[in-house]
C-alpha cells in the first residue's frame, strides 16, 4: 500500500450565466495551469440549461510532485471551495446560499453589478432585490471578499468581464498559477486577445489596489464608483414660490412647477401650486403626505398624451443619449425610428371635448376598440420630424381637448378624496395620494390602471368617506389594495382584496 500524503488540491468554483464567457474563463485557467506545470481538472454542466440561466464551472489544481496522477473531484463540495468567482451579485449570493462560500477558507471574487432575473424585471413596480444586504452576506460568509463592479471595469476597457476576472485571479495569488502563465493563456486565446489583455491588466490593477486596503472584507466601503444598482438621488432645489412648503417638499414642488410649465404653460403650473397651497394649509397635512402629493400630482398632471410624447421625442438631450447608447463612432450616421401606435382614445382624446366624446362613443358602438394608427416615424429625418413637430405644437389646444377634461375630472376627484380624508381619516390621506401611481402608461396599461383605481375608489374610498363603511379601516384597506393592484396584470389579487375588504367592513359596520 502506498503511503498517504496530505496534499490538498486548490478548488475553484465559477458561477456565471450561460453565454457570459464562463467557459472561456475556465478554459484559460486550464491552459494557464498546464503552462505552469500543474495537475488540473475542469468540469462543467452546460447543455441547454445554460442559455442565460445560472451555471457553474468547477476546477481543481494540484502541484505535480511525481508521475502519479491525483484523483480529482467532479463536484464542488460545500465548505471545500478555496476560491469562488461569481460574475454577478445574485449568483454570488446563490453560491453563498448553497454553502460553497465559507468563512474558514473561501476567497470570494464577485462582481457587484446586477443582471436582473425575469421575476425582478417583470414586476409591475420595483421588483429589484436590495444590493447591500447581499453584499453584506457575501462578505460575512467569505474568508476574504473582493466585491466590485467588474462589469463596469470591463466596459471601461471595452473588454469582456471574464478577462477582468482572469486578471483578478492572476494578481490575487489565490490560485497556484503564476501571473505570466495566465497572461500567456489569454494571449493564446482564439479571439479578441488585445481586448482580453486590456481586461486582464485592469483586473490585475484592481486586485493590487484592493490589496492596499488593509481589510479586504470591507472592500465594498472602498469601492470608488457609486453603485449602479442603488438609484442616484437627484438633488432638487426649492424656489421662492415653493418655500411655503416644508423643506423636503419644496424641492419636489419646484420640480413639479418646472415640469408643468414645460408640459403646458405657467398658468397650468399655477393651478398645481394652488392645489398644493390649499392642501398644505390643512392642519392634518404631514410633510410626508405633502411630498407624495407634490410628486404624484405633478406626474399625473403631466399625463402622457400624444402631444407630450411627440414633444419629448424631439428633445435634443434625447438625441445625444441615443448616440451615446448606440456606441456610434465618429462619422457614423445615427437614425432613430419611433414605434408609435396611438389607439382611438389617444387620437380622439386630442379633439375638442364634445367632438371627441361623440367619436369615442361611436368607436365603441362600432367595435373600433382595436383600431389603431401604427406609425414608424423617423425623427432624425425631416419627413418624420415635421409630423411630430406638428403634433407637439398642437399642444396649445390641449386645454380644450377631451383627454384634458377627463384628466382634470380625475384630478378633482382624487384631490377631493384626499381633502375629505384629511377631515375624516387623516392617516388615510397619504394612502389615497399614493393610489395615483396606479394610473399611468398608455393603451391597455392605462386602462387597467384606471379601472383598478376606480375600483378602489368606488369600493373603498368613497364608501368610507361618505359614512357607509367605517373610515378607520380606510388607510390600511387602500394600502393593501394598492399593493395588490401591482401583484398581477390580471388584477386578480386586487379583486380578492377589494371583495374581502367589503365583507370585513360590512361586518364591522353592522
Amino acid at each position: 500500500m502506498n503511503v498517504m500524503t496530505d496534499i490538498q488540491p486548490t478548488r475553484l468554483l465559477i458561477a456565471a450565466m450561460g453565454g457570459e464567457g464562463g467557459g472561456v474563463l475556465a478554459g484559460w485557467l486550464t491552459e494557464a495551469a498546464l503552462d505552469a506545470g500543474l495537475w488540473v481538472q475542469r468540469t462543467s454542466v452546460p447543455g441547454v440549461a445554460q442559455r442565460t440561466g445560472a451555471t457553474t464551472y468547477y476546477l481543481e489544481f494540484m502541484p505535480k510532485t511525481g508521475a502519479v496522477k491525483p484523483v480529482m473531484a467532479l463536484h464542488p463540495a460545500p465548505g471545500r471551495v478555496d476560491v469562488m468567482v461569481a460574475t454577478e451579485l445574485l449568483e454570488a449570493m446563490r453560491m453563498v446560499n448553497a454553502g460553497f462560500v465559507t468563512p474558514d477558507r473561501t476567497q470570494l471574487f464577485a462582481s457587484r453589478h446586477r443582471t436582473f432575473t425575469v421575476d425582478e424585471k417583470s414586476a409591475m413596480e420595483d421588483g429589484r432585490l436590495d444590493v447591500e444586504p447581499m453584499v453584506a452576506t457575501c462578505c460575512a460568509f467569505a474568508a476574504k471578499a473582493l466585491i466590485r463592479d467588474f462589469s463596469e471595469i470591463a466596459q471601461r476597457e471595452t473588454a469582456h468581464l471574464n478577462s477582468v476576472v482572469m486578471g483578478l485571479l492572476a494578481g490575487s495569488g489565490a490560485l497556484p498559477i503564476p501571473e505570466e502563465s495566465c497572461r500567456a493563456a489569454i494571449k493564446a486565446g482564439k479571439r479578441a486577445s488585445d481586448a482580453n489583455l486590456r481586461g486582464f491588466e485592469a483586473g490585475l490593477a484592481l486586485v493590487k489596489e484592493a490589496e492596499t486596503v488593509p481589510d479586504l472584507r470591507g472592500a465594498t466601503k472602498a469601492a470608488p464608483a457609486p453603485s449602479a444598482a442603488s438609484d442616484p438621488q437627484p438633488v432638487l432645489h426649492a424656489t421662492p414660490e415653493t418655500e411655503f412648503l416644508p423643506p423636503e417638499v419644496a424641492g419636489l414642488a419646484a420640480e413639479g412647477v418646472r415640469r408643468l410649465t414645460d408640459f403646458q404653460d405657467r398658468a397650468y403650473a399655477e393651478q398645481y401650486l394652488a392645489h398644493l397651497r390649499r392642501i398644505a394649509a390643512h392642519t392634518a397635512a404631514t410633510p410626508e403626505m405633502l411630498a407624495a402629493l407634490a410628486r404624484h400630482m405633478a406626474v399625473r398632471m403631466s399625463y402622457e398624451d400624444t402631444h407630450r410624447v411627440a414633444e419629448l421625442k424631439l428633445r435634443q438631450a434625447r438625441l445625444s443619449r441615443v448616440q451615446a447608447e448606440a456606441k456610434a463612432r465618429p462619422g457614423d450616421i445615427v437614425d432613430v425610428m419611433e414605434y408609435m401606435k396611438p389607439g382611438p382614445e389617444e387620437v380622439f382624446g386630442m379633439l375638442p371635448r364634445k367632438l371627441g366624446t361623440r367619436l369615442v362613443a361611436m368607436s365603441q358602438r362600432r367595435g373600433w376598440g382595436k383600431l389603431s394608427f401604427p406609425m414608424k416615424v423617423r425623427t432624425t429625418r425631416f419627413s418624420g420630424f415635421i409630423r411630430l413637430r406638428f403634433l407637439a405644437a398642437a399642444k396649445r389646444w390641449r386645454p380644450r381637448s377631451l383627454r384634458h377634461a377627463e384628466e382634470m375630472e380625475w384630478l378633482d376627484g382624487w384631490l377631493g378624496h384626499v381633502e375629505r380624508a384629511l377631515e375624516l381619516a387623516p392617516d388615510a390621506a397619504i394612502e389615497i395620494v399614493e393610489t395615483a401611481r396606479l394610473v399611468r402608461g398608455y393603451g391597455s396599461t392605462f386602462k387597467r390602471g384606471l379601472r383598478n383605481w376606480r375600483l378602489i375608489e368606488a369600493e373603498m374610498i368613497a364608501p368610507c368617506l361618505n359614512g357607509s363603511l367605517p373610515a378607520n379601516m380606510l388607510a390600511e384597506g387602500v394600502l393593501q389594495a394598492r399593493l395588490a393592484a401591482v401583484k398581477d396584470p390580471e388584477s386578480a389579487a386586487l379583486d380578492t382584496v377589494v371583495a374581502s375588504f367589503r365583507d370585513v367592513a360590512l361586518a364591522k359596520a353592522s
Partner: protein
Amino acid sequence: MEVSFHKEIQSLKLGDGETFYGEGILAVTKALLQSGVAYVGGYQGAPVSHLLDVLVQSEDILEELGVHLETCTNEAAAAAMLAASVQYPLRGCVTWKSIVGTNVAADALSNLASPGVIGGTLIVVGEDYGEGASVIQERTHAFALKSSLWLLDPRPDLPKIVDMVEKSFELSEASNTPVIMELRIRACHVFGSFETKNNVPAPHSTRQKFEEPAPFVYERLAHPPATFRQEADKVDRRLPLAREFIVREKLNEFMGPSTGEIGIITQGGLFNGLNGCLADAGLSDAYGNLQVPTMVLNVTHPLVPEQITDFARGKKAILIVEEGSPEYIELSVGKILRQADLQTALHGKDMLPQAGEYTATVVGRGVAKFLDTYGVESGGLATWLDGVDANRKALDDTSSDPLPPRPPTFCTGCPERPVFSAMKLVKEELGPVHVSVDIGCHALATFPPFSQGHSIIGYGMSLAAASAVSGTQEKRPFTVMGDGGFWHNGLLTGVAGSVFNQDDSVLIVMDNGYSSATGAQDLPSSKPKDLGRGKGLNMEKALKSMGVKWVKRVNNYKVSTLVKVLREARTTKEKGLKVILAEGECQLARQRRLRPAMAKALSKGDRVVRTRFWVDEDTCTGDHSCIRLSGCPSLTIKPNPDPLRTDPVAHVNNDCVGCGLCGEVSHAAQLCPSFAQIDIIQNPTAWDRFMRGLSDRLIGLFGGAAGPERQTGRTPDGAGVPAE
C-alpha cells in the same frame, strides 16, 4: 452548424506517444478512432453532441480511415444502424442522450440484442442525470438488464475512459453482445489528458468494401423461432463469456488493502467523489491511496458473482454506492451474497438516498453513517459535515427570502420568443387554450414570463399528446414543436396520425433551421452551407403532400401578423390539422455567421448598417408590460432618471441584436410609444451624408435642433468587442 471545431479535429489526429488534452467526450471520439471503428452515428443531445459535431467536420480523418459517418434522424435510426454488426465483422459506435434517446432506440436495441453481434458494437450514452440535466431522471441500467446489453460506467479519468472504450469493442466481440457506455454530464465535460495511440483503419470500411453480402442465415434474424434460441444463447453462452472477459481483462478495479472489516463497492463513475469523502475521513488521499477495500465497478452489468463473493467474504459489511433508482446493483449483490450464504451485511440505499444526484455531501453523509455504524473513526469527514450543517444554520439565520431563480431563457433575439409573445397576446384576447409542449428550446416558454404548457411527453410527440385533448375540449388545443422534433418523430407520430384521425388542432412548428437546443446541428430541413450537412428538405411540401390543407408560413418577428394567423387558426371554421410554420433562423447561429462578416466589411470600409433598439426613458412609465410580453435578456430595467418617479424604467442594453421584437410587441399590443429603433450607418456613403445634411437643414428651419452634434456622434468607446 456555424461553429468550427478545427482545434478539436487536430487532437483526433494525434499518434503513438503523444498527449491528448481535452474533454471526456472528445477523448471517447479519439478512442473510437484508435479502436478501428468502421462506422459511427447517433443523434445529438447534451452531453454527447460533441462526438458527432466534431466528426461531421473531420472529413479528412474519416476519409483516410474509411469510417462511415451517419447523422441519424433519431436514436431509433442510430440503433438500427448497428444492425451492420449483426452479420459483418464491423466495429461500430452510436451515441445519444439517455434516458430519452435509449427510450426512442428501444425497439431496435431489443432486436439487435437478441441475435447479438459479430463486430464490436458500442453505444455511448450521455447519462443526463442530476444538476444540469434536461430530461426525466431515470437510469439507462434498466435497458441493459432487460435486453442483455453490457453496461460500462468507467471511472471518470481520461486514460481509464479511453481504455474502456477500446476494451468495450473486445468485450462486445468476445461475447457477441452490444455494449453501452454511460457517461454522466460532468464526465463528458471533464478536462484531462491521456497518451494517444495511432488511429487504426478498420479492415472493412468505406475504403475496403465487402464485395458480397453475407449468406442467408436465418439464425441471425430476430424472428421466431430463432428468437427462442437467441434468448437461451444470451444467458448460456454470452453471459459467461462476458464475465470471463471482465475478470481476465481486469475491467473492474480493486483498490486499497486486500482485506478489511468493511468494504465499499462503487459505480466507476462515482469513484472520484467517493475518494474525496474517504480522504476527508483519513481513509484515502488526493492520489487515491485507499485504506479501505474498494471495488470499482467499471462494468455495472453484468456483475461477476465470484468477484462479489471474493470481495465480501470475511467482511462484516459492505456499502454499495449506486446512484439513482431502483438500486439494481444492490439487489443483484444481495442475491449473490444470499446464494453464497455469506453473512456480510449489505448497505446501500438504507444509508444513501434513493433518489437524486450523488454529490459530495450526499456521498459524504452516507459514507459517514456507514463508517460510524461499524466503529470506524470518520474524523475529518464528520468535522466537515458538521461544518456544512453549521454553515447552513448560520445562513438560515441570516437570509430571509428565497432567491429568485434564474432558469434558462431564450437567447437575445431568439426567433422563438416572438411566437410566445404572440400566443400570450392572443390568450389575452381570446382566453386560454390547452397547449401541448415539446422538447427543444421552445420548452423554455414554460418558464416566466410566458409560463405556458400543459404537457411535455417526448421529443416530437406534442401533437400526438394533444390528440385525445382535441376530441374532448371545446377550444382547439395548440401544439408547439421544433423543426428538430418534427423530423425526429413529429411528422409521423404527430402529423400523419392527426390527419389520419381528422383531429381538429393547431400545430406551430418552429422553423429555425437547426437542432438548436443541442448545439445548432443540421437537420434534414437545414439549408445547405459550407459547414454541415443541411439538405433543405421542405416541410411545407411534406405537410401538404400528407394532406394538410391549412399551412401558413409566417416571419416570427412580425408579431402583428403572427397574432392574426394565430387568431385565425383558433377561430376558423375549417376542421382538421392547421399548421403554422414559424420561421426565423436561430439567432446564435446567425450571429456566429454575421458578426465576423460584419467586422470584415467594416474594416474594409464598406457601408454597414447596425440596428439595435432603445427605450425612451422619458416616456416609459415603469409598468414593465413590455418585459412581461418578451423576457428578452437585453430588455432589462434601470433606475428611473425622472426625479418624480421611483419605479425603474425599461432599458435595452448593448447585447441587443436588433431583432425588433420589443418594438413589434409594443406595436402589436399597443403598449406604449417608448420603443425606438436605432440604425447606425457605419462608413456612410457620400449620398448618405448629403441626404442627412439636407434633412438636418430642413429640420433646423422648423426649429429643430440640428446642430453639428447631430452629425458627429462622438463617444469615447469604440464598437463592442465580440465575445470569444
